[in-house]
């Protein structure tokens, strides 16, 4: 068991090295290099750019730069933000709680909704058709547009909910914070529930086609009990892994949603950094996002391996 986890963890290392090469190459593909931002700035003289290049080691061979960057990244020295000169790690870390809150609540709601939809779908044919269409519509919605429309309806037209931010300036009430959370969490929950209800429904269908379900039926077990106890329990395992594997989608969704609703999380920081071409922040974000996705994939594999004895023979 432990050996599977450690063997699987070892595979993550070359994967992350590949990712780091990709991220590094991307930033250095900029015409004029990472300092291109200053090239258009009339207040920065060419000599200053030259000095900065030497100071930052940008005149050294690319391979040396890559190794130096990688070493620094691993030991936690992520450099300083071009925008305000503060350490990148501080800027990222202070934004993490807001993002975790948003992703946590929206994923929780999405899992509940997806489970209910999948359960009802497997016993009611008509509902199943409607739910399938609804789910396809849900995954086809541009997330940022859904955010704009909800803002328009619930904040601008009806005035029920605040349109952006995490709390009213100066206010700190729990209700106020909750009200700010509703719209961005709803947007992410819709996107995820649409995708996840499809997965759970198809794995429910597979479970319901298994011989042991027919066995349960022939023993006279009630349909409700068959669906909730026998099928759902078997369908949940692949579902849990799919939710964990969707971490990459959550990261993209958080970037978009936080930016539309001015939610002060990591995703919002990313779009701010993008507008200012703050490359140190962008690189750190992409690396952290990829590490998080790789680690969650690893967790998903290990969970399946631990819980489902059928997968153990394969490796």
């Amino acid at each position, binding site marked *: 068991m432990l050996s599977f986890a450690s063997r699987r963890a070892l595979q993550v290392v070359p994967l992350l090295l590949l990712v780091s090469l990709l991220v590094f190459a991307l930033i250095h*593909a900029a015409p004029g290099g990472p300092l291109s931002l200053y090239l258009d700035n009339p207040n920065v003289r060419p000599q200053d750019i030259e000095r900065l290049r030497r100071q930052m080691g940008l005149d050294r061979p690319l391979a040396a730069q890559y190794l130096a960057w990688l070493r620094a990244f691993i030991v936690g020295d992520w450099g300083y933000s071009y925008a305000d000169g503060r350490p990148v790690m501080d800027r990222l870390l202070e934004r993490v709680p807001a993002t975790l809150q948003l992703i946590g609540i929206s994923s929780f709601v999405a899992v509940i909704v997806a489970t209910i939809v999948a359960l009802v779908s497997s016993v009611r044919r008509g509902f199943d058709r409607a739910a399938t269409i609804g789910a396809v519509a849900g995954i086809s919605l541009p997330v940022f547009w859904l955010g704009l429309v909800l803002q328009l309806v619930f904040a601008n037209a009806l005035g029920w909910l605040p349109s952006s931010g995490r709390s009213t300036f100066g206010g700190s009430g729990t209700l106020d914070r909750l009200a700010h959370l509703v719209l961005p969490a709803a947007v992410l929950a819709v996107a995820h529930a649409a995708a996840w209800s499809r997965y759970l429904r198809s794995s429910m269908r597979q479970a319901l086609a298994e011989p042991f379900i027919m066995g349960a039926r022939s023993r006279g077990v009630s349909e409700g009990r068959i669906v909730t106890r026998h099928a759902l329990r078997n369908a949940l395992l692949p579902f849990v892994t799919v939710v964990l594997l969707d971490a990459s989608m959550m990261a993209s969704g958080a970037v*978009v949603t936080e930016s539309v609703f001015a939610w002060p999380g990591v995703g919002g920081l990313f779009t701010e950094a993008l507008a200012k071409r703050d490359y140190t922040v962008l690189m750190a974000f*992409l690396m952290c996002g990829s590490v998080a996705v790789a680690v969650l994939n690893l967790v998903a594999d290990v969970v399946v391996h631990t819980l489902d004895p059928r997968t153990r023979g394969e490796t």
Partner: protein
Amino acid sequence: MSGVHRTGRVTALVAAAGLGLLILLALLAPYVAPYGVDVIDLAQRRAAPSARHWFGTDELGRDLLTRVLFGARVSLAIGLVSAALSAAIGVTVGALAGYVGGASDAMLMRGTDAMLSVPRLPLLMIAAAVLAPGVPLLIVLVGAAGWMETARVVRAEVQSVKTRDFVVAARALGGSAPRVVLRHVLPGVLPTAAVSLTLAVGRGILLESALSFFGVGVQPPAASWGNMLYQAQTTMSSEPWLALVPGAFIFLTVLCCNMLGDAQFRSRALAS
């Protein structure tokens, strides 16, 4: 089962007709659009939807219906061509990995895993910010970010097809590897590839719209559905139609692609 078949076919038909109509309108934009693409009418600035301007006008008095039709050309072109590119890369990588196997398989699949673990939208946003692409480069970027899913399904399919008797027979008769792959293996993989191609069109359109929405995709004065939303964002409360209409077009187009892909997938699942 025939009931499912029929509903599936009806949705597929409706979705295909919707997509066809949109592509036709985009191709004929110069002829069907009610106004010129950049005609500015300052007397009609920020006009709400009416009989003269079905979808209203923007801050320069440009007709929104006209701009949506011309925007469709850019958005659809990016979606379709990037999907074709994704499919080409994905099928190549998947077929190589699945057919050759061994070390090349391991290497290609690790590369695919690496690409899949980088959050796609942020990666593309950085690439677009760094390279400041025009439409052709934007197509390449979106296409290069979307081949991994295709590669995975094609690889799995190729692995199962290559053990079938007719492929073994073709090899035994001395067929060269490229010939066996092209003539015998790939035709069996095509339906799977077609499904991921259809889904990739929708994904490409969504990615373009998100990139343009954040100001790093298609640049004004060229119109795409995404950058129309980008420009509409600031005047949302006073001129909501500027945001509602292009977004609705993105939604409906992607919906058509996904319904079509779904129907293809299901008819295939039923057939096998």
